[in-house]
């Protein structure tokens, strides 16, 4: 969070350059200067000044199975990209342009990695197929394919495509849970118990512990509990025996238990 504070401070510094002007005018002027000079220091200054937006958006889309830090990284890179690509003459506010870019990059990130929902295997498989097909059709058609086109290309029904897209995005109550108004969440104030909340809390607790495991152990746990593969299926995919998978799972879970127990006590 210190970086966010630094970013906010930098933004104040940039925007307070002239009290009689609006922040928007100052920003536009700085971008015009950047377009003219391509000054790396100014580029850095503008990117840093808008890092707060990256943090805000990353927080908005947490709880979808991806670590907050990763989302911040994706969003921050998107801010830099936005600074490089922004054209102040187009009449769009930088923050609008940057928000669009950051959301686009976050969507792409979730498309590649996000599996917050333990979706049925057939849905996961269709989602993965859709991702590849959408990319190929986009290149072929020069536009984003429609649902009927994707359904036809993957030999699935339109309903199945919509279901897979919904599940694949890691959607659940994510951004509503993540709202930071008064540091409270909508879900926390809704009377009935949300049965998926425990999963999210567990995931948040597990994420740092998972990160400490060896890459292969992480993969095996993800395949077993994220994708619901059997030990035999994992063995075939990773190229080791089912017994070895069983031993690795047991050892990894034991390490996770200890790690989480330590974190909770701390």
């Amino acid at each position: 969070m210190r970086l966010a504070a630094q970013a906010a401070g930098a933004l104040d510094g940039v925007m307070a350059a002239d009290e009689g002007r609006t922040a928007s005018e100052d920003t536009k002027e700085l971008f015009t200067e950047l377009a003219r000079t391509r000054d790396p220091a100014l580029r850095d200054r503008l990117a840093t000044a808008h890092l707060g937006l990256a943090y805000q958006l990353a927080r908005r889309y947490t709880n979808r199975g991806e670590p907050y830090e990763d989302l911040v990284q994706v969003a921050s890179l998107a801010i830099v990209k936005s600074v490089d690509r922004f054209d102040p003459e187009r009449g769009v506010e930088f923050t609008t342009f940057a928000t669009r870019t950051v959301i686009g990059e976050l969507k792409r990130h979730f498309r590649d990695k996000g599996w917050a929902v333990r979706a049925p295997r057939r849905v996961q498989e269709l989602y993965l197929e859709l991702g590849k097909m959408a990319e190929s059709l986009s290149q072929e058609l020069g536009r984003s394919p429609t649902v009927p086109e994707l359904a036809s290309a993957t030999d699935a029904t339109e309903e199945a495509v919509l279901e897979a897209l919904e599940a694949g995005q890691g959607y659940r109550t994510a951004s509503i849970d993540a709202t930071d108004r008064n540091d409270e969440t909508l879900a926390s104030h809704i009377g009935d118990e949300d049965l998926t909340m425990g999963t999210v809390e567990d995931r948040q607790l597990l994420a740092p512990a998972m990160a400490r495991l060896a890459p292969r152990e992480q993969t095996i746990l993800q395949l077993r509990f994220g994708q619901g593969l059997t030990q035999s299926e994992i063995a075939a995919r990773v190229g080791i025996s089912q017994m070895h998978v069983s031993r690795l799972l047991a050892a990894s879970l034991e390490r996770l238990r200890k790690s989480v127990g330590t974190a909770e006590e701390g």
Partner: protein
Amino acid sequence: MSTDGQAGVVAVDLAIPVKADLVVLARLTAATVAARAGFGVEDIEDLRLAVEELCLSLVRTDDDGRLNFAFEYVPDAITVKCCFEPQPGWDGAASGVVDDLSLRILDALVDEHGREQRDGKLCAWLRKRRAPSTV
């Protein structure tokens, strides 16, 4: 109501309790209407995020009531309207303030959006046009 998007308006109404895990119904409805209207998957993803954001922009953390959605597809555009119908005795003093981030996200995802009071209810709406290159 018509089911032919080129000939007229396709309208779908949906009412859900203010429960976070039911917002999926609004997202799916929006996605389904958009798919029927020939929107590309990128636009559908944007619409899903925008519908979620629309809810966030309307409902406070401690609100209790129902969200009434109206999804309309007119040629080349989808409009989603959402009104919050609070439970009797609801104190609306804290509601009606939308945070900047919600507005910024909606700016980025849709072509137009706004808020209004209708029959004493707080409503928000958005409109997303179909990308010109889409069939």
